Each structure stands twice: as C-alpha cells, then as structure tokens.
C-alpha cells in the first residue's frame, strides 16, 4: 500500500525538510513538557528538604513492590516502543510494527491498571489529602499535615504522569489502526517516531518519580 497522501505537504520543499520539522517540533514540545513537570519537581524539592521526616513516612506508605513492577513494565514498554520505531525505519512489514505497538499498548495499560490499584489502596487507607486525610497506622511522632503535602505532590505528580500515559495509550491506538492499514514505510513513518519520543519521555519522568516518591526510606518506621 502506498497511499502516501500523508507524504509531502504543500508548504515544504522536500520530505527531508518536513521530517526534520516534525522531529524538531516534537523535541521542542518535549522541552515544554520538561518545564511542565519541572514546576512539580520544584515544589517536591522545596517540601522534601523542609520536611524530610514526613516525606520519608509518607513514602514508606507506598507499595514498593507495585512501584517496582510498574517501573519494569514501563521500561519494557519503552523497549517495545523502540522496537516498533526500529521496525518501521528498517522497513519491516506493518504487521511487525503492529505487534510491537500492541505490546507497548498492553504494557502501558498494565501500568495504568497497577496505578489505579495503588490509588484505590490510598483511598481506602485515607491517604488522599483533603478533608478525609487521616492515614491508618500513621507512625507516631511524624507531622501529618506535612505528610499531606507529600501525598498532595504524590497525587499531583503521578496523576500528571498517568494523564500523559492515557494520552500515550490513545496515540498508540491511533498508530495501531494506521499501521494495520499499512500506512508506514521506511520513507514515511514520522508519527511512529514522534509517538515513540513522547512515550520514552513519559518513561523518563517515571524513572525519576520512582526513587523520589517510593524510595525515600522504605524502612521508615520499621526498624
């Protein structure tokens, strides 16, 4: 299938220019994403250094096993995404691309599923900041209102990340449909590449979130 209606838009001189423009555009977009998450990271940094104890206590309330599992799932999805892009660039059939994309989609959904389970647990244990915030089995002698800041940032940061994951899953569905129709070729697979960049970026954010949120001091209060 060579229905490259998508190929060259009228205002570009040649496909290279178009491809380079898309790639630069995507990177510039990721630049804004860095700053977008950056604001949250700044707030996290400020409060963690002000209230280390409450942050450690809050962190110890998270389920490290689920966090670990999610990290591995997301790294795996990055691998399959990279392989999907590679298949497209190397001229593998669109079926191969679809397989890798579906794997990525699957892993992304597993991530979101686990995340939902974690959120649910937090809700049950009253660890969602707000009026209903009174964590069960809260370690004695740790300021709870400061911990509320921790959980606020936990939900803010992971929520923002999860929102990006949901968008990523939507983009993957789009790619799967297009690739299923054989839309991509070594000459033109820009969307696969761009979604790939986005997906890896979201992965990188999680690579930082995992130690910052889950692993401040997993032994806190358990000595």
């Amino acid at each position, binding site marked *: 299938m060579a229905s490259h209606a998508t190929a060259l838009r009228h205002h570009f001189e040649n496909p290279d220019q178009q491809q380079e423009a898309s790639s630069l555009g995507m990177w510039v977009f990721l630049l804004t994403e860095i700053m977008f998450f950056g604001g949250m990271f700044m707030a996290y940094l400020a409060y963690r250094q002000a*209230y280390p*104890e*409450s942050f450690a206590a809050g962190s110890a309330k998270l389920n490290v096993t689920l966090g670990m599992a999610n990290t591995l799932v997301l790294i795996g999805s990055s691998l399959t995404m990279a392989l999907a892009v590679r298949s497209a660039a190397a001229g593998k059939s669109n079926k191969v691309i679809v397989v890798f994309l579906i794997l990525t989609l699957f892993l992304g959904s597993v991530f979101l599923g686990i995340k939902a389970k974690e959120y649910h647990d937090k809700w049950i244990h009253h660890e969602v900041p707000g009026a209903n915030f009174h964590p069960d089995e809260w370690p*004695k*002698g*740790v*300021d709870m*209102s*400061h911990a509320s800041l921790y959980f606020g940032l936990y939900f803010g940061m992971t929520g923002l990340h999860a929102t990006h994951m949901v968008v990523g899953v939507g983009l993957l569905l789009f790619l799967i449909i297009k690739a299923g129709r054989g839309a991509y070729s070594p000459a033109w697979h820009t969307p696969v590449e761009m979604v790939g960049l986005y997906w890896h970026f979201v992965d990188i954010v999680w690579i930082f979130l995992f130690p910052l949120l889950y692993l401040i001091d997993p032994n806190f209060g358990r000595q």
Partner: protein
Amino acid sequence: MDWKYLPIFPQSASNFSPHVDALYAYLVTVSAFFSILVAVLIVVFAVKYRRKSESEVPVPLNEHGIGNMMLEITWSVIPLLLSLVMFGWGALIFFDESKPPADAMDVWVVGKQWMWKVQHLEGVREINELHVPVNRNIRLTLTSEDVIHDFYVPAFRTKTDVVPGRYTTEWFRPTKVGAYHLFCAEYCGTKHSGMIGTVYVMNPNDYDAWLSNGGTEASMTDEGEALFQQLGCVNCHGPQNNGRAPSLVGLYNSRVELKGGGTAYADTSYIRESIVHPLAQIVNGYEPIMPTFQGLVTEEQIQQLVEYIKSIGPKSPAATGHAPAIENGLAQNPAMSGVAGEPAPGAPKSAAPKAPQKAQQ
C-alpha cells in the same frame, strides 16, 4: 501655585527616609539624563536628517570599524557601571532595613482581613493604630491570620509582607513626631483599601503617658505565662526537667540540637513553629509526643507565649540576630536573666524594652 496639592516627596519620618530619598535622587538623575539624551537625539536626528528627496539613500555607517565597536562597548559598560552603583547602594540600604538593631523595642502585629492588630509588650493593644516613641528603634514581628498582607508606612520608606504561617520582621526608627499613613500594600481582598491605619510617633513622655492610659491589661509576658499554665504547657515544659520535654528556660536565642543530627536556632520563628507543628523538629533526646496547638490558640496568643518563652531565656528579650557583642553583654546583666516569667524587678510597663538601651550605654 499651592504645592500642597502637587507634592513631589512624601513625608519623611524615619532613619531610612533620607537614605532612600538620596538613592531616589540618584536614580532620578541617571534616568532623567538618559531619557532626555535619547529624546533630544531622536528629535534632532529626525529634524536634521529628514529625507530631502525621494531618491536619497544615506551613506552607510561603517559598522566594522574599531570606533563603532568601541561605541557599542561604551554604551554597554557605562550603563552597567551606573547600574552596579544602584545595586550596591540599594543593597546596603536593604541590608540595613533587614537587620533590626539588637536594642530594638518589640511590637507584635497580626494582619487579618481587613484590620491590623497590634500588641505592645506592656499589654496594650490597638487596632489599625500603632503608637511608637520617637527616636527609638522599633522592631515589628508580623504574621497574618488569613491571606498575605503588607505593612507599609510610606513616611518610613519601608514595608514587609505579612505572611500567614510565619513571622516576618520590619524595623525602623521614627525621627519625627507626627501621624503617618499605614497601608496594606499587598492585595488582600474586598476591603484591601480599607485596611489602613495611622502610625503615631510620639515624644517619649507622651508615649509613656499613652501607655499608662492603655488600661489595666497584663503585659504580654504575663498573658503568655497564664496561657502557659492554662494550656498545660507547664506540665511538660516546666522549669524542672521531667524528661518528657525540654525545659524552655534559656531556650530563646540558643542553638537546639535536633533528633537526627541537625541544629536549629531558637528564634521567634522556631518557637512559633514548635507550637504549631511540634513534630517537625524534635529536640534531641526527647520523644515526639507533643500535640499541635494549631487552631487552639490565636496568632496573638502564640505571640504572647513566644514573648513569655523569650522572657525566661537567659538572653535579652530584645537581642535576636547574631550580634555577639550585645548578646554577651546582656547575658551578664543580672536583671535580664530572671527565671520563669518573673518580670524584671520593679519593672513598670515600659521598663522592659528600655532596659537594653541602658545596658548598652
């Protein structure tokens, strides 16, 4: 023409005013010079070099010559130097404005929507008014019950944001008797422009007379001590160390060893934080068992407690900051190292703040 209606300078009534006004004059001079220079040049060029014929094409300026490079450097470096003078001068004044002298007389202020509540050490309270003696260093410690406000006295050329959840500091030495505007300068809601008041600068005698007419209120220290009993603080923090909590005698202005290694400097902020968020910083060797008093005491009551705890410190109630000379001098002053809330012997209402001045003399 009556210049009363077109004033150029505000009233000048504090130690900062002359300095700020001199700086202002410098800034205005530099600005006026450059504004007029640019304006004159533009007008002259526009007239002198106006296009005389439609086909006229001006000779290009040689931009790559050494001369033009020098020009670019000149007009970058001269403004830079002039502005670094501004920076240095401004920073000096600011540093001065930020660091209250050790002998300053304390006044406590709480801002709330939309009024100013003032407590004097002697227990006199005011609303939207502040009475201070002339030629005395005054240190305000301010906090807010709700949103951010800003305590601004134009005649004193100083202001400070009043931030909920923390103490901020503002100081000045009024130099002229009179009544001056007090404004809230940080937008705080509906009646922001109604959150105004008057600062009365008085002769010392008038001030003492005003103080003694202030009613029969107990001093802040006494109020604080009463609260200390009433809230049960004394059960754990009494002068006899019972092992549950550190005694607060001698706490103020000392360095506290914290659990986990660090230290904290026990200033008014630290004391306030310890009442509101007691578990945030645990003193080394003690269990984290103190409940929070957030919501149980008002900001004004916290100020009284702080003032009480200050009073049982061995060091001057007036000496915060790291002014070692003053600290040492006062630590040896027996009148100042009274224990457990006893006001300095024979001290009438206004004696406490005055004592440090004597000690210095």
